């Protein structure tokens, strides 16, 4: 892992909403094939940080580089226009807490929409690929159902397939299991675990500590808009140094399944 090249590099990301400084100069590097798990109390800025990475939110300061692209900049250093930015944004896949599937489209159409409308892939080809991605996520029987006909766990897997279909370099997950009934959490975590094992680069915001322990190459603890501590899961969970992290882990203790 150490020898892998850096794929995503965020430097000095700051963001305020009004008077509230939500992110204060956050730095994070993610290596090719690495799974980074971000933990932290609610309101510590985890979602905002992920959204700054793929420019759903525009940071007030800082830069995000992915491979040889600086998000928001063209190769010649001038500001990217909207179309260019859209192209850069799809280097990141994004999986939302509440799935955000397109309710008017079937699972296959949800997955095929990006390839068709962004990459210009013909419909038949895009839908064949979509069925392939859905099958890989165990949804072969559900390709023609609309989101409203699927369980939360199935919907979130469709959302993962939708991200995968764009061949992103890295996938950002924002609490992908927080909106799910407890019995549906595992199927989504299993899908993510399989992705990590296949070498997908992932940044995962989650409260699932068992997943973090087992799958993360590195865990990042955010507090008050900063990275307070980071390291391999054994160190971070086994010997936390930051006092806020210690408190955070103690609070989780009762509900942690080991």
């Amino acid at each position, binding site marked *: 892992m150490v020898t892998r090249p850096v794929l995503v590099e965020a430097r000095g990301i700051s963001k305020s909403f009004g008077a509230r400084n939500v992110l204060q100069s956050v730095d994070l590097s993610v290596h090719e094939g690495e799974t980074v798990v971000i933990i932290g109390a609610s309101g510590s800025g985890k979602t905002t940080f992920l959204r700054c990475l*793929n420019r*759903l939110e525009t940071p007030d300061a800082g830069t995000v580089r992915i491979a040889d692209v600086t998000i928001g900049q063209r190769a010649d250093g001038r500001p990217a226009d*909207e*179309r260019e930015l*859209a*192209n850069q*944004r*799809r280097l*990141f*896949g*994004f999986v*939302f807490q*509440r799935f*955000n*599937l*397109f*309710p*008017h489209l079937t699972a296959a159409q949800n997955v095929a*929409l*990006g390839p068709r*409308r*962004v990459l210009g892939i013909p419909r038949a080809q895009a839908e064949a690929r979509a069925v392939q991605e859905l099958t890989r996520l165990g949804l072969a029987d559900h390709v023609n159902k*609309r*989101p*409203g006909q699927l369980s939360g766990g199935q919907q979130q897997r469709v959302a993962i397939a*939708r*991200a995968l*279909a*764009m061949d992103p370099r890295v996938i950002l997950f924002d609490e992908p299991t927080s909106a799910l009934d407890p019995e549906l959490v595992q199927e989504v975590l299993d899908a993510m675990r399989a992705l990590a094992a296949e070498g997908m680069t992932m940044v995962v915001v989650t409260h699932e500590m068992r997943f973090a322990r087992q799958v993360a190459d590195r865990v990042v603890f955010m507090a008050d808009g900063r990275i307070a501590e980071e390291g391999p899961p054994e160190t971070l969970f086994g010997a936390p140094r930051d006092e806020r992290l210690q408190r955070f882990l103690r609070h989780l203790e009762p509900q942690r399944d080991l």
Partner: protein
Amino acid sequence: MYFDWNVVTYAAPLLAHGVVMTLQVSAVAAVLGLLLGLAAGLASLSNSVLLRGVIRLYVEFIRGTPLLIQIFLVFFALPVIGIRLPEFWAGVVALALNAGAYIAEVVRGTVGSIEKGQSEAGLSIGMTRRATLMWVLLPQAWRPMVPALTNDLITLTKNSSLLSVISVYELTRAGQAIIATHFAPFEIFLLLALYYWALISALAYVSRRIERALPSW
């Protein structure tokens, strides 16, 4: 009170001619108004400040002035700059311009009310704002738009009676002509009201059918 049934039986079939004209002028204006309103509504959601400003101005102007004045402007003012339209088309243009502004607001409001997560999901897979609008937001907006659009088209149909002032021989004008020769304003206006009512009811019925036929999720 004296009610002249003879004039009613005499006028009822004559007014059918006016009904046809009302339907024609309203239908053509409705189609143009819908297209204009859709285009203007989408433009008001675009990135372009200039485009949004122009649409804003158009909508404010239409909403801030009486339709009667707008009709006169199209009929009497356009010829001054060299555009002379026959009564029918002047009427169509005035009604379409008027309805287009209200429809633009419906389109803008409905598309804008679709949950923010939808456009963010579109952006997250590399779509531009425009592509998100076309493929994600608009398809979800059709059905919730139908009731408000129906209102606007009903208003348009009722407003077509104002075209009598520029001598479009629609229902109201046809009625006025009969009143002028038979002096039975009560009977004729009552008849006109019933005709309009029937027309509008039919329109509302069709709209409910369309709404039900559109998919929901």
